């Protein structure tokens, strides 16, 4: 397994796109958060926004980079036919997928930590400048407080789980364009579906099973009781999605001719 890891790490390290994608992840996340925080203004009646969600808003944009990184790690090899070289060198396919997953997760966690904590710090400053308060005279949560810390760490985990979900789908679909289409469809379309259906029961259910909505519940720090799913349970839903995708992709990789 160590050799598998080393091989996959070398492969990903030596592809020109990896560095750019990680840089893109950080940039897009921070930029998205800054724009969202700057766009929020409070009325005299108070601020109706969750400061954690706003200052970590960029995750919703930055996640695309984590998805590409993961998809390319697998389907990039199918595109060039290098997958046959890989499988010839390392015939234990499950181990190959696991190594890929580990390397991609590690990189996403690293870049995600930088992106999320930078967003949280910058976003908080901007929100404070906009007159954002928790209540009269009380400043909004700082990173030192439990809920905000949970939101930030959860967002990093969220990015890693998105990468794993993408990796599994890419292993199942193989073609890179199709894989990225499926991943983005799964994330964004499922996230908007609850808004398109008026029935409250369906709305709630669709919300709970949508990987992006449920996963991002980890960012909620206000009105927790109104959430259709609790923060950690939401991240759990995303974990189930990622595990299912990896399992499905892994099984197909085992069964299929390369």
């Amino acid at each position: 397994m160590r050799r598998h890891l080393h091989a996959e790490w070398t492969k990903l390290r030596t592809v020109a796109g990896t560095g750019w994608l990680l840089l893109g992840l950080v940039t897009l996340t921070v930029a998205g958060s800054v724009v969202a925080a700057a766009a929020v203004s409070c009325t005299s009646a108070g601020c109706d926004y969750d400061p954690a969600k706003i200052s970590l808003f960029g995750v919703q944009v930055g996640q695309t980079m984590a998805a590409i990184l993961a998809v390319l790690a697998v389907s990039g090899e199918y595109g060039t036919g290098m997958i046959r070289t890989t499988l010839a060198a390392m015939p234990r396919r499950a181990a190959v997928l696991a190594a890929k997953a580990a390397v991609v997760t590690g990189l996403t966690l690293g870049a995600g930590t930088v992106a999320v904590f930078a967003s949280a710090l910058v976003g908080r400053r901007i929100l404070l400048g906009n007159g954002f308060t928790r209540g009269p005279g009380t400043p909004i949560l700082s990173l030192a407080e439990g809920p905000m810390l949970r939101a930030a760490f959860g967002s990093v985990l969220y990015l890693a789980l998105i990468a794993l979900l993408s990796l599994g789908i890419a292993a199942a679909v193989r073609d890179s364009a199709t894989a990225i289409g499926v991943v983005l469809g799964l994330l964004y379309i499922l996230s908007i579906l609850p808004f398109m259906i008026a029935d409250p029961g369906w709305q709630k259910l669709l919300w709970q099973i949508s990987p992006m909505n449920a996963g991002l519940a980890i960012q909620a720090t206000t009105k927790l009781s109104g959430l259709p799913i609790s923060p950690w349970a939401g991240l759990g839903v995303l974990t189930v999605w990622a595990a299912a995708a990896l399992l499905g992709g892994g099984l197909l990789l085992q069964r299929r001719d390369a």
Partner: protein
Amino acid sequence: MSATAPYRSGARAGRGGFARLLRAEWTKFRTVRGWVLAMVAAALVTVLLGLLSSSGSHSSCDGVCPAVPVGPDGEAVEDKFYFAHRPLAGDGSITVRVTSMTGQIRLPDLNPGTRRVVAGVVPWAKAGIMVKESMKQGSAYAAVMVTGRHGVRMQHNFIHDTAGRPGGVSKQSPRWLRLTRSGEELTGYESADGANWTEVGTAHLAGLPAAVQVGLFAASPGGLTVTQGDFGGSSAASRFAEATAVFDKVSLRGSVGGGAWRPDDVGVTLNPDGSAHHPGGFKESGGTYSVTGVGDIAPLSDGQQIENTLTGVLTGLIVVIVVAVMFITAEYRSGLIRTTLLAGPRRGRTLVAKALAIGTVTFIAGLAAATAAVTFGKQVLRANGNHILPVTTLTELRVIVGTAVLLAAAAVLALAVGALFRRSVAAVITAIVVTVVPYILATASVLPADAARWLLRLTPAAGFAIQQSIPEYAHVLGDYAPSAGYYPLAPWAGLAVLCGYAALVLGLAVFQLRRRDA
């Protein structure tokens, strides 16, 4: 040198150049089964998801849902106000002085169940004089009025609004209002002193019969509270508000029916026991009249919009983007692009032919999908008891055809991005991030409405504006947020933004293709 006779090609020159390139690209598209199936799937998913979301929308009324009145221009309207009126035959006029406008508004409850009602008027509370075709809700009218915060206005037939002098009304600074009828022409005037009159506006009420109703009215739309949704988006709530205006110096000209003013609480909501819910009122004492009204005389925006049946378009769009990108990047991957450029060495024309081919295919698939989704979706919505806001045939056609154009333009954009990047993943991501993601962030995220509006102005997602069937009315306070289906740009302007992006990127792609070695 060679003695061999030179070879002459037996191939005959065919038809004009561009048409041949277009035909070749169409042949390319239709001979890859995966692409054809994907395009069919895009259409199907558009229709099916639209029907799914339509069937998820239920609305029930006790017994039969009351008919929603429709205004003279065909739109659904709210026609609910207090009207003290008398018949007028033929030409004539009414002049009044308004000396005060007061009212009360219910504020959001602090403790559930405890009503908080304060004195005040909402911005679009209105009271004044009106000539109305009949007492039937939705019939034609013209009115001059004072409003809560928008000064004197002249409005007619629900959707037309002309501003007069700004400022409120009080005992110290009363407002004189006059409305004259001459055939189908109605003219509104205002004055500060009853001597110097200024024309506010005119209205042409086509087909106005000789016998109409003329009188004093008051109405007040509910107080609007927009709350940021807990999971994103926003929701609007309307709370009870009423307005009371005091009139004096009422004078009528023309053949006005004799007798007293007839008070009517037009369109008042009834409680189950038959009594009026929030009734208005009319008092008269010594030439001074006080009219209290609840409701509004305005276009209605509550109800299902036809574009709600097109929610599947977003998913269809992702499929279309993937196909359009692959239509070009697959050629780069296999090297087939060189063969393409050998067959059509004028590269600009070749790429434009390719864009036109994918655009046309997408347009046809999109047109079929949008037509089916709207047609069947409306049936499903109606069967579930929903009220669908009526629109003109032309608007419905614009929504359907516009949706097809939206998909086609997005396909061209995706193809152009594919030609520019030559890599499928980068191109698919870019195309989705600039078209689908802004729309989702603007309509279904915690993003504030202002930021959402900018997204829908600046990004290619502006094209979704073509789907908006009910316009935003400046004289009706509402939650005109993107999440409620209101776009910051006019329908064709929004589509033009998308088409502009598609043309721009295609231009860049042509430039690059010409410059680069293949």
